Structure formats: C-alpha cells, structure tokens
C-alpha cells in the first residue's frame, strides 16, 4: 500500500469497506418532458461494513438488488445517494490515481463464465489485461501470468489458448485469475458457482477459500444458494427488494433467523437433511416489484406475521435485545422459528 491517496494509518477496527445509506433508483417511466415519473428502487438505503479478511454474503431472490449493490460497491455504476468508503477512500468522489488504485484493489468475478471472457483474447491477454501499467517485458508478463495461473490450478500450457477451448469450471478459474492478477484486497464474487455443475462447484469453492487464505482476500459473496452461503460466509446479509432485512454471523443467521422472510427463505431450500414431514413456511404470491415502493415494510404483502404497523412505516434494521449482539433485523414483529405456530 504505497499510495498516499489512501488515508494513512486507519485504525485496525475500521472496516475495509464502509457503506452508508446507499440508494440506487432507475427511472422506469418519464413524462412528455423526459422527467422521470416513476422509479425502480433497486437499492433502498443500505448500510454495510466489511472487515478485512472476512467473507460477507449477500443473499436474496432475483430482483432483491444484490447484484446492483455489488456493482455500486465497485463503482461500476453510480449511486443515486449514499457513500462508499474503501480503506478510508471516498470511492464515489475519487478520480485519477486514487480511482485507479481503487480499481486494482477491488475486483469482481461474474456468474457467467461463458459471457464474461472475451472470446477473441488468449488466456494470457485476459489475465494480464490489468497489468499494463506495470510496463512488463513480454517474457516477464508471461512469467507473471503463469504464476497466477498456478494459483488457480491451471498449467502454464494454457497461456496461448482461447476461452472457447475450456469447460465452465476452467473458465471460472480464468475469471478468478484475472481478478487476482492485479493484487486486489477486496473481491466481489457475483454468483460465482451458480452456472456450474455440482462436482465442479465444489472445486471452485475450495479454490476461493484457498486464495482467501493465501492472498488475505476479503470477499463480498453474492449467492442465492443458501447451502453455498452457509459454507463460505462469516456474515450474511439477507436482502429483500433493495433493503437488508436481516444481518448476522452466518451461524447465527442459519440457526436462529428472526425475520419472517429469512425464515421462509431458509425453509424453502431443498435440503438433503430435512425429512419431508418437517414444517415448511410457504409464502404465497410472487415477489412484488420495487417500482415506487410504499413507505412500509415491503415484505408485508407476503408476510405471515404482519401487523398494522408494517404497512404504515419502514422497520429499521435494528439489534433486538433477545438475540446476539451483532445480529440485526428489520421487522416490527419478529420471532424465533421455535415460537412460530401454525404457519402453512
């Protein structure tokens, strides 16, 4: 960390990434003058801290805003409001060298190993794309890329080959190699194993864990697969329609979920453990859209614990006296699963 652009000497307890009141609205309808009259609120006021070396998972169903949030964290898209700080740097106002340094230190891995690699480039070019500023000689560049490929368990024999020659799992290794090639501290992995077969998925998850240990990486891990999240994450944030509705250490979240949505989500996951008679919380209806959302709990329309207050104001993400200290939940009427009766 040589750059003077980054605030020096952050206290060790400061998070690597600090997100406050982050909002992203997309205009979906406009009046005759082109002014937006209707918005989709993809991310609706998110606060999130990610500490060095940990894996924070963002989970939720399609449309919950987890991928939009990921892109906001990396400033791949600009937010409507809010702040993102990375190691003390105000990411949203950074420019020039500061921004370039940030872009090296914060990388992303995408879901689709077929769509995210340019088919016209060789593996060598793909992995070394971020190294241009190092002005390496051709042979040094090959040697450096070969080293990185070794980290992702690919042989240097693949340097001159093209993406179409590889299977899905190998392509995902190439994507990972590209992400770690520039020496990042933070890696955002957006559904990195969702497109892969089960037997390939486990090899990639192992690789991500190994790399985290060896390179001291911090992960923001986005997934809809709760068993993958349980395996990988230290902390989990559950999102519903643009808001974090519950956040807790992984174990706490899986063992003692408080938000009705988290409970329903966990009980919907097909599992190898559960026997068929076990109780399942069945949600009715589909996820509503986040277009011009009301000032209320957005889960209320599907919720089995709804009370009047839920449709009148937005429940804040708060710590409850009955649960662990770093477990927060946004619900006016939470209850542990054991106290739920007659949910169907």
């Amino acid at each position, binding site marked *: 960390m040589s750059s003077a652009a980054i605030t020096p000497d952050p206290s060790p307890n400061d998070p690597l990434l600090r997100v406050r009141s982050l909002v992203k609205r997309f205009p979906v309808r406009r009046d005759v003058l082109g002014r937006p009259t209707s918005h989709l609120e993809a991310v609706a006021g998110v606060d999130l801290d990610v500490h060095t070396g940990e894996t924070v998972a963002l989970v939720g169903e*399609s449309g919950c805003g987890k991928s939009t949030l990921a892109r906001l964290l990396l400033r791949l898209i600009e937010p409507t409001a809010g702040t993102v700080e990375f190691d003390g740097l105000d990411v949203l106002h950074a420019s020039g060298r500061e921004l370039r340094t940030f872009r090296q230190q914060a990388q992303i891995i995408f879901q689709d190993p077929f769509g995210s690699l340019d088919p016209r480039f060789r593996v060598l070019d793909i992995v070394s794309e971020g190294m241009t500023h190092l002005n390496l000689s051709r042979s040094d560049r090959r040697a450096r890329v070969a080293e990185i490929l070794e980290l992702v368990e690919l042989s240097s024999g693949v340097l001159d080959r093209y993406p179409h020659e590889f299977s899905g799992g190998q392509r995902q290794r190439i994507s990972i190699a590209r992400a770690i090639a520039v020496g990042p501290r933070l890696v955002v992995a957006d559904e990195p194993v969702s497109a892969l077969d089960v037997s390939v998925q486990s090899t990639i998850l192992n690789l991500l864990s190994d790399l985290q240990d060896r390179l001291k990486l911090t992960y923001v891990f986005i997934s809809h697969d709760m068993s993958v999240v349980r395996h990988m994450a230290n902390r989990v944030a559950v999102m519903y329609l643009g808001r974090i509705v519950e956040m807790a250490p992984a174990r706490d979240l899986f063992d003692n979920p408080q938000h009705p949505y988290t409970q329903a989500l966990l009980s919907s996951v097909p*599992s190898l453990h559960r026997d068929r008679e076990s109780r399942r919380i069945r*949600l009715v209806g589909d996820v509503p859209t986040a277009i011009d959302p009301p000032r209320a709990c957005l889960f209320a329309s599907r919720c089995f614990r709804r009370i009047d207050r839920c449709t009148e104001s937005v429940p804040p993400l708060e710590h409850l006296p009955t649960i662990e200290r770093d477990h927060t939940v946004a619900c006016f009427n939470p209850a542990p699963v054991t106290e739920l009766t007659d949910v169907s």
Partner: protein
Amino acid sequence: MHDAALVVESLQVEIQQRRSAALAVDNVSFTVGNGEVVCLVGESGCGKTLTALSIMRLLPEAAQLAGGRVLLGQDDLTQLREDEMRRRRGADVSMIFQEPMTALDPSFAIGYQLTETYLAHESGSKAAARARAAEMLDLVGIAGAEQRLGDYPHQFSGGMRQRIMIAMALMLEPNVLIADEPTTALDVTIQAQILELILGLRDKLGMSVLLITHDLGVVNEVADRVVVMYAGEVVESARASDFFANPRHPYAQGLLRSMPGLTPPGQRLPVIRGRVPDLFAPRTGCRFAPRCDQCQPDCQAARPPLERVDDQHELRCYHPRPFAE
C-alpha cells in the same frame, strides 16, 4: 406391484458431430410406476434431457434414436407414425421445459396458447376450451384466471410463467408428465411452490412424473425413485429412501459428498477429481473409472453391467463401498 405408466427400455440416442457419431444415451432403461415421481439425476451432458426428448420424440436434428423402446401403456412410442405420436403428445404424455421465458410464445395471449392444444385434440367448442384453460390456471394458483386469459407472457412473472407452462401441459390430463429442470430458473420460494404444485397434482390427478434435475436436494424432497446417469448411462437406480440412506455408486456418493450442506462450514469440500469424459473419445471399461478412487484393474478392462443389488436397487459398479459422509 403397481402397473408401469412409462417404461423406457434399452434406449439409445446417437449424436452426430462432423463425421463421427457417439451414443449420448446408451442403453438406458427405467420404469415410472403409476402415480410415481421418478427423478432422473446427473450433470450437464449426461444424457438426461436427450432421454426425455426421445420419449417425446422431439430430438434435435443432430440426434437420433438408435435403438430401444418407450412403452406408454400398451404402445411403443418409437414405432408410432408421426401423426399418431402427435395425438399422444399432450394427451398422454406432456413435457415442461426449463425456460419458462422462452417456451411461451410472446406474441400470443396465454389463453390462445393454452386452448390451442386442447382444440387440436378435443372436439369441444372454443368456449369449453377457455373454460378448461381458466380451470387449469386456477388449479396452478393464478389468481383471477378468467380475466388473465387475454394477457401476454410478458405480463407474468417467471414463477407465474412456469405455472402457465404446467397448466398448458395439464390441459388434457396426461398420464405422464415429464418435467425438465422445471424450477432451475426460479427463486427458491417460488421453486418450493412449484414443486408442491406438481406433487399436489400427482395426488389429485393420479399423474406419474418424470422429473429431470441436477439438484439432489430437490430429489430428496420429491422423489419416490431415483435414476442416476453418468456419461450417457444409468449407473444407479433405487428407491429414494434407499438411495439417500445408502448410495452405492462412487459417482453418486461423490456428488452427494461434494454438496456444501454436508461439510462443516470452513472445511474443504470433497471433490470428484477429473472431468466428464469426452463423448467421442473411445471408451472401454467403466466410464467413471478415470475419476474413481475405488478403481481397480478390472474396472478398466470391461464395462460393469447394471445389476440388481437388492429388490429395488440397481447398480453399475464392480467394487461398491458403503457410503461414509
């Protein structure tokens, strides 16, 4: 002993690539009993979808049936003339596809798409067909069914479109429903609704279901029997309860072990080494041998047959070991 709704016998599907040909489905046999849910499990390229498509006789051009029989009741579907087969599709055996977004035609109202098949098969009036369509939409849980018949696919969410696909497949109350990864593109809370719907319809209509999936969690929750495929062949077939209590094929065991739910968080996941073999590469011996930890010389010499290990359990392995998680 219940009667079989669908019997697949020594099915072979050949695919052509340039000048070579290979069996992508090689001697696959299984039975779906009346009212049973049978899950066909395997990873991409194992031949599970081709198996389903050959039952429906909807194979893509590059693939063709090379042998075997598909018995639906008394008839061998592979021997029917195309016009006879057309009468059976939808009426006796119906299929739902993975992508509800692409399987519905965006330019027609769903009422039209639902009634089209019905009118082609039944002599009833258009009004009767629409009434039936509304009834089926209601059955799959689409609110205000009658009003929504005039709506187009884009006006429905993904989960609703998948339910419309199911309604369409059920318009003629087929005996057998084939569902190819019907919930893979859907969110888990919606997936749970759809699976419950399929099971409920099985109970209500006495339908038999062949469910194709890669998700062993889904299999554990819905299957009566499990058929595991690897590289074009069946490697294990068993009652679901037996299978999950005691999977015997090293591939099936490896798949189960590699699922994140079985390993404590933070520990390394067990993996199946190597890769799925190339279909066009010459093969002798057990197809899983190159990746198998229990491989012995005889595994490479000759292909193990699919043999009965007990009453309802079939296995293709010379050296099975008990399952340890």
